[in-house]
């Protein structure tokens, strides 16, 4: 019960390799246009890549390139797709929608309806069985859509931002539901929400520009991000560069002092590394505050925005969280040049 995938689509600069262990759920994240939809569509069989190969539970679902051109059509793949919108068939009742998969697989009507009722009960929507999709709220419809996807007993469940179109009251309910049904099930979930990755996925895969830029257990990726996107998800400041004796040197020659994570660098000084620190560890000064072991970066403020009960100061690609009182005392306005000061002890440095 495993899934392996490698595919390239030159037209979209897409080239991704990934795999799933038995019963594993992977969250796929990344900026818009990173290739997340291309990944799901090609797994589902709705989009044909230039080349590559994928196997699901020992069955080749496609093998393109070289002298092979095997391409299993979507209806024979066992990969049910749950999209952002429920896309329930508007002319069928909720029950008939859920029974659609089993009936397409040749299950007789009565048995398919029993199966559908079981899944509707599983998503706590049995009372909606007789309703048409137009008579369901967004959250109800998405729950029915989950039941419809699961009723096909998919070998691999594909979820394309299933919570994105829901209002803030329906999303938590669906998230709890998905957590229950995704346990011990192979699934790929595309999401923008770090909460989905933490709650629903065992691992996270970060795509950018059609390539995998980072992957690993969700917690590790969020604690020690190695890509700007993952750092953004974790809400951390991120500075890439080359490792030095006591920190990193950025591409612009800026020295960042920090403490080295992990036992010791494999490559030693000179290898690629990143420095990461939370915005709450940054202090803002009007003048340069010298004195080791501190980092002081002269930056020009681009934005000030509320962040919880703090003010987030954005400058030079970094962020600092300070109290509204401190912001008022310093008289901060966009365009002003200030110094971001971080203690070396608050900066994590590790290999990229």
């Amino acid at each position: 019960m495993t899934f392996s995938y490698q595919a390239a689509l030159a037209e979209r600069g897409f080239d991704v390799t990934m795999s799933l262990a038995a019963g594993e759920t992977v969250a796929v994240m990344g900026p818009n246009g990173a290739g997340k939809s291309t990944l799901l569509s090609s797994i589902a069989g709705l989009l044909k890549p230039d080349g590559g190969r994928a196997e699901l539970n020992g069955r080749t679902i496609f093998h393109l390139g070289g002298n092979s051109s095997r391409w299993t059509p979507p209806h024979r793949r066992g990969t049910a797709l749950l999209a952002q919108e429920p896309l329930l068939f508007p002319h069928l009742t909720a029950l008939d929608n859920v029974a659609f998969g089993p009936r397409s697989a040749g299950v007789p009507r009565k048995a398919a309806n029993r199966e559908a009722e079981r899944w509707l009960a599983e998503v706590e929507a049995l009372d909606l069985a007789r309703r048409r999709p137009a008579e369901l709220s967004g959250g109800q419809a998405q729950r029915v859509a989950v039941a419809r996807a699961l009723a096909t007993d998919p070998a691999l469940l594909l979820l394309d931002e299933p919570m994105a179109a829901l209002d803030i009251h329906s999303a938590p309910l669906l998230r709890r539901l998905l957590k229950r049904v995704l346990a011990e099930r192979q699934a790929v979930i595309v999401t923008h929400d770090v909460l989905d990755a933490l709650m629903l996925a065992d691992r996270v895969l970060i795509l950018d520009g059609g390539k995998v830029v980072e992957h690993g257990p969700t917690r590790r990726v969020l604690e020690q991000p190695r890509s700007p996107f993952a750092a953004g998800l974790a809400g951390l400041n991120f500075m890439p560069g080359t490792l030095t004796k006591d920190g990193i040197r950025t591409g612009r020659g800026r020295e960042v002092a920090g403490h080295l994570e992990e036992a010791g660098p494999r490559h030693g000084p000179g290898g690629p590394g990143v420095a990461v620190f939370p915005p709450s560890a940054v202090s803002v000064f009007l003048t340069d505050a010298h004195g080791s072991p501190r980092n002081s970066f002269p930056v020009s403020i681009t934005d000030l925005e509320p962040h919880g009960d703090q003010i987030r100061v954005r400058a030079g690609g970094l962020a600092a969280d300070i109290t509204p009182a401190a912001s008022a005392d310093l008289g901060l306005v966009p365009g002003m040049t200030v110094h971001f000061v971080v203690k070396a002890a608050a900066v994590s440095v590790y290999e990229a």
Partner: protein
Amino acid sequence: MNTRTYTGLPRWLYGLAVLAALVVVLPLAAIVARVNWVDFLPLVTSESALSALGLSLRTSVASTLLCIVLGVPLALVLARGRFPLQGLLRSLVLLPLVLPPVVGGIALLYTFGRQGLLGGTLEVLGLQIAFSTTAVVLAQTFVALPFLVVSLEGAVRTGGQRYEAVAATLGAPPGVVFRRVTLPLMLPGLASGAVLSFARSLGEFGATLTFAGSLQGVTRTLPLEIYLQRETDPDAAVALSLVLVAVAVAVVALAYRRPAGRGVRQASTERATASAAPGGTVP
């Protein structure tokens, strides 16, 4: 109607709009005014009239069915297929909409007639199409098919293929997707397209006269009968015209009534947004 909101229409526009409406409505009123109501029933139930009406209805039903059987695949292939010269084919299919029907009739004659492109082949098979009831149906199909294809292709294109894609990932083979998803979803578009095709078939005159002639009971449909009666019995022509006007009114009402499904769907989105509101408006 809300009479309070700003329309932005200059007043003189209303004058021209009324004129335009009169151009359409006045001639219709003139027919109604000219009808000989005393003899109306005998006029429209005369033997030749009934024969023409019956032939018109039979051939129009036949050509509408033919339009559906041929037009649905054509509309789907034009909307969703990918093949070379697709754009050119789309334009060619629309040609009968703008072609003078007489030209269509001549084109059909040189396709299916005895001296035509397929005439020899058909003769070998023992088929004589020109100047038969089959010719009437063919002429009507020729002019009515674009109506069905255009209205259906538009509906299919705006609907997109997302339901079909979902159905496929749920394990439905293409045949099942077509029968259980595509066809039911295109039904409203198909219904209005079929009604328009039927109306166009019912009114067909030029192509029919050219390609099928005017044989009572065989090819003389109601429009041909009206044209013929105009010379000898204007009262009969007017009465039969009124019958066709009535049918046209019914057809327009059927084809352009507000689709029932849309109202329900809008209501549901309103409900969805309304249910989201309370959380944000807690004092």
